[in-house]
């Protein structure tokens, strides 16, 4: 009797949990379905399967019924924006990985005056609301005469990505047995050799995971980029923002789906590396 009482609570929790997962994924699934719907006028009504929205995204003419030219994007612009986004995300995450890892090594392996201040400071960019960081950087760059460009975006991203990498790598270092490093030194290896042969291989999954997650956060960043991109530099999220502001059109769905898929693949790899044990 009480067995049934226990399991009925468990069943309710299962239903609740499933509903939660549906809540998380239904909106993304909806965009995906819409992106294949040939109905150009009302996405909510299914009129047939099409690749047209993906084709127009790359400047190809729709294969189906004739459409207004407005449905076709300029492929050069999209490719340019994509190139910008990749340059920013790769540079910013690479720089942040180096800086974040170096900082994690310092706080994990050394005691120094002001260590707690550093640790607190590293949390600040993550808790600072994006809009505050965005406008502060905007005022700064304009004030000191930096021309808003890809470079300012990269610098801006580094300020908060370094903290993400730091936290991931520091967590890995904390879980690592530092007697291994002592053992290496005991066997006659110098600090550089110890780092290269012992420490680095051991924290490598954390470093790779940090890099991939930083990459995807950079690629997806809207708010900070929005303020420091300047007028003639666009990244992919800003491009989408502009598209949505011009009005909801079906090829936004196609672009959104491509972006989701890409983010999911990179983030999955990042999460995998972050959680991997030696």
């Amino acid at each position: 009797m009480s067995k049934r009482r226990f399991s009925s609570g468990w069943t309710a929790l299962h239903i609740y949990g499933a509903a939660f997962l549906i809540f998380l994924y239904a909106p993304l699934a909806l965009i995906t379905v819409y992106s294949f719907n040939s109905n150009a006028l009302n996405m909510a009504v299914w009129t047939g399967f099409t690749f047209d929205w993906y084709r127009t995204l790359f400047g190809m003419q729709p294969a189906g019924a004739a459409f207004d030219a407005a449905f076709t994007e300029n492929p050069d612009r999209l490719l340019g924006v994509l190139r910008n986004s990749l340059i920013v995300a790769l540079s910013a995450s690479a720089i942040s990985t180096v800086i974040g890892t170096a900082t994690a090594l310092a706080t994990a392996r050394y005691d120094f005056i002001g260590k707690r201040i550093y640790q607190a400071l590293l949390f600040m960019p993550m808790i600072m609301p994006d809009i505050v960081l965005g406008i502060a950087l905007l005022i700064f760059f304009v004030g000191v005469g930096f021309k808003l460009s890809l470079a300012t975006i990269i610098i801006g991203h580094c300020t908060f990505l370094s903290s993400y990498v730091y936290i991931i790598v520091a967590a890995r270092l904390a879980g690592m047995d530092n007697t291994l490093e002592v053992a290496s030194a005991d066997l006659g290896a110098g600090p550089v050799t110890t780092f290269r042969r012992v420490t680095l291989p051991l924290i490598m999954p954390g470093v790779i995971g940090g890099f991939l997650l930083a990459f995807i956060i950079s690629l997806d960043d809207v708010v900070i980029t929005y303020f420091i991109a300047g007028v003639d530099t666009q990244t992919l999220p800003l491009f989408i923002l502009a598209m949505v502001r011009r009005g909801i059109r079906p090829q936004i769905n196609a672009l959104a789906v491509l972006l989701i898929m890409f983010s999911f693949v990179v983030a999955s790899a990042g999460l995998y590396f972050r959680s991997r044990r030696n």
Partner: protein
Amino acid sequence: MAEGGTISSQRRKALFVLLTPITLLLGAFFLIPLGIMVVYSFLEPGLYGGVVWSFYPYNYGRIFGWPLGGGEEFEPLYIQIILNSLYYAALTVIVTLVVCYPVAFWVSRMGPMAKNIVLFAITLPFFANLLVRIYAWLLLLRPTGAVNTALMSLGLIDQPLNMIFTEFAVIVGLVYVLTPFMFLPIYASVERLDWSLVQASQDLGATPFQTFRRVILPLTAPGIAGGCVIVFIPALGNFIVPSFLGGSKVQMTGNVIERQFLQARNWPFGSTLAMIVMASVLLLVLAYTLWMRRAANNERLAGAGHV
């Protein structure tokens, strides 16, 4: 000792190499910009954008009604918007908390395999582009959107429900975007919860509700507090969600700041509003840190007495 000297100078060199990059990065591109922003909030806006370098506290007067001067007038609208933002952020915290708490228990009671899969599934949407996630709700909630179309074709309603550009839409959007931030810290504390304590409570005669209130809730409180803080902060400063889902009807402080910078070009006033957001955030984080430190101190004190 010569040897000790070598080691400590080596150590200093290593620390210098490791810490210089982060010091330069956060010093030059985080602390200084924030400092300049603070300075800007006390400067006079120039006529066509830009600033006049004179002490000008009246940006604050425009918001709080004091000090006034320099032609600034008290505009209660801004207090209203700030209070609204606090209210939306608080509501978002409450909803995400209520949504995530049972899910954390659901996941924590799973087998290791299922647990990993579900945790992954819950974390993943966080990495989907923010705009795309909000845009999806635009597709769901607008008059010709999926929800209205479904309800009308089922015959449940005749007229589309007015959901988009409402408080409801903004809260749904904020909840959707920030749910992972609430879930992860709560889950961490639920996972750490020692189930023998729950059994002990039952064993001593506590009803399920008493067990929840007196054992489970206090022991998962750190996770709840952490989740609340890290949901509240991005909710408070958000401007993408209200601008997509709130339209012109629902405004948050973030929207006003954005307009001051990119349209009105009154940077000092925008900085003042940003200062208020930043100050609220710092106060909240400070309170949280002090609370956590007190708890940790208690534990350390306790640990010292452990034999």
